[in-house]
């Protein structure tokens, strides 16, 4: 359903993605792993149009997304929870969730989705009228995911949702990702938490220095000697 075909992406003169290709099929949870600076965030930003590839194509449900503005891409059903959460610091939880359902299609189902999201993240109900910058790190991450779910996405891109969170909260966030996936949302998950990501993933891609170097099912990669050595410290 989401197909990235050998994209090349550069920041100014500095090329950071080289012929990156990957695919996500409907209903899958696909993990994208790799060391810091490998190009995972850049890949997600290219998918949602925040960066424009020099060459290559990105297809979603057979339609070419390459070169469209982010708001057009989001409208087609891709939601992106960016690295570092990127909340609106002065807005309340409620306002974030309303903004998450800004698009007409999502606005029509706003009440239902709000109930659904608040049942997944009960803490957001308690914080409903609080401003984002006053939330804890874990709560902010949950708000970022909840905001994305408010758009009723077909595919959810998650960029390091566990970054900077306490181990207990990390476990909770992974539990929630699995739950969302079980409810039928297709997910592309970027993680440095390789062990946990591969455990819940159907398939995974490994990136190194701007290139995809390995691909396989989650369990295959968990057992792969190079992955074990480089990312699992075994």
């Amino acid at each position: 359903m989401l197909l990235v075909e050998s994209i090349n992406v550069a920041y100014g003169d500095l090329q950071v993605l080289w012929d990156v290709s990957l695919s996500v099929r409907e209903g899958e949870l696909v993990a994208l792993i790799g060391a810091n600076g490998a190009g995972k965030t850049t890949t997600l930003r290219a998918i949602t149009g925040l960066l424009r590839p020099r060459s290559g194509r990105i297809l979603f449900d057979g339609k070419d997304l390459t070169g469209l503005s982010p708001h057009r891409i989001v409208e087609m059903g891709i939601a992106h929870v960016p690295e570092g959460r990127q909340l609106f610091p002065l807005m309340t939880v409620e306002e974030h969730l309303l903004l998450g359902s800004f698009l007409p299609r999502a606005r029509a189902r706003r009440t239902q989705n709000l109930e659904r999201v608040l049942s997944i993240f009960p803490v957001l109900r308690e914080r409903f009228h609080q401003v984002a910058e006053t939330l804890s790190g874990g709560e902010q991450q949950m708000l970022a995911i909840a905001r994305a779910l408010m758009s009723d996405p077909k595919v959810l891109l998650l960029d390091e949702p566990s970054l900077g969170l306490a181990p207990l909260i990390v476990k909770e966030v992974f539990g929630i990702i699995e739950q969302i996936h079980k409810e039928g949302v297709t997910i592309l998950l970027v993680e440095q938490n390789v062990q946990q990501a591969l455990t819940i993933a159907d398939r995974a891609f490994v990136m190194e220095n701007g290139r995809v170097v390995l691909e396989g099912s989650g369990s295959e990669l968990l057992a792969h000697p190079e992955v074990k050595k480089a990312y699992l410290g075994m």
Partner: protein
Amino acid sequence: MTTFLQVFMTGILTGGVYALVGIGLSLIFGVMRIVNFAHGEFVALGMYTSLLLFQSMGIDPYLALPLIIVGGILLGALVERVFIAPIIAAPEHVSILMTVGVGLVISNLLLFGFGAHPQSIFTWYSTKTVRVGGVTFSGPLSVSFLITLAVILGLYWVLTRTEIGRAMRATAQNRDAAELQGINTAVARMLAFGIGVALAAVSGTLLLPVLYVIPTIGGVFTLKAFVVTVLGGMGNVLGAIGGGLILGVTESLGAAYISSGYRDAFGLIAFLAVLLLRPAGLFGKSRV
């Protein structure tokens, strides 16, 4: 004491309208991260448009307000589309030159169309006054102040309660994240500029019954708007209200008790003092 109250309250009433000018500038800065150096010229444009409507068709400035609001939004959006949008990603000095240029074109068109002599309108209410507990207020200035309050409340409602208002605030706070919610941030910027210009033009209309107007008056208002927003904190829309009131009162007191010839200078002195003592403005950082 009565004189002091009188002078003070006149400052508050004038300051309210200054606040409106500043809020427009602040909204534009908050959403677009550019300083609109043509802002005062849009105040002048509002004044002359109302003057023309009054002189040629007898339309009262207050009754012309709906037209000025709609016209201001449309004109502002058009100016943004044609002149600002293409250079929005360029370095800062480009947008400074561009808005200064837009301002020069407007003031020279006004000069060409209306001549350099000062003009004003005279209506049945021009000399009317309102007396409250021994203090006398100018009737039109009081009406303008009340309308200003209504406009500010209306703007607040739009920014906090409507989809498009929330979209503009989201764009101000995090542009990429706003795009990721499906917001067309180019349209949000266009609208923010349109509303900012409309607020400037409305201020011009509200001041027409109490001021003489000349084509170069825009420069004075750009400066005032700048003072108001810096006093209130750049991009801080609510702070601009405080900034406007302070500017109005400072000018009014300075003109009454020191010298009326330097009315505009007193606001600048307050401005320099704040810049030196509290560079982030009296009311803190960006709050759109």
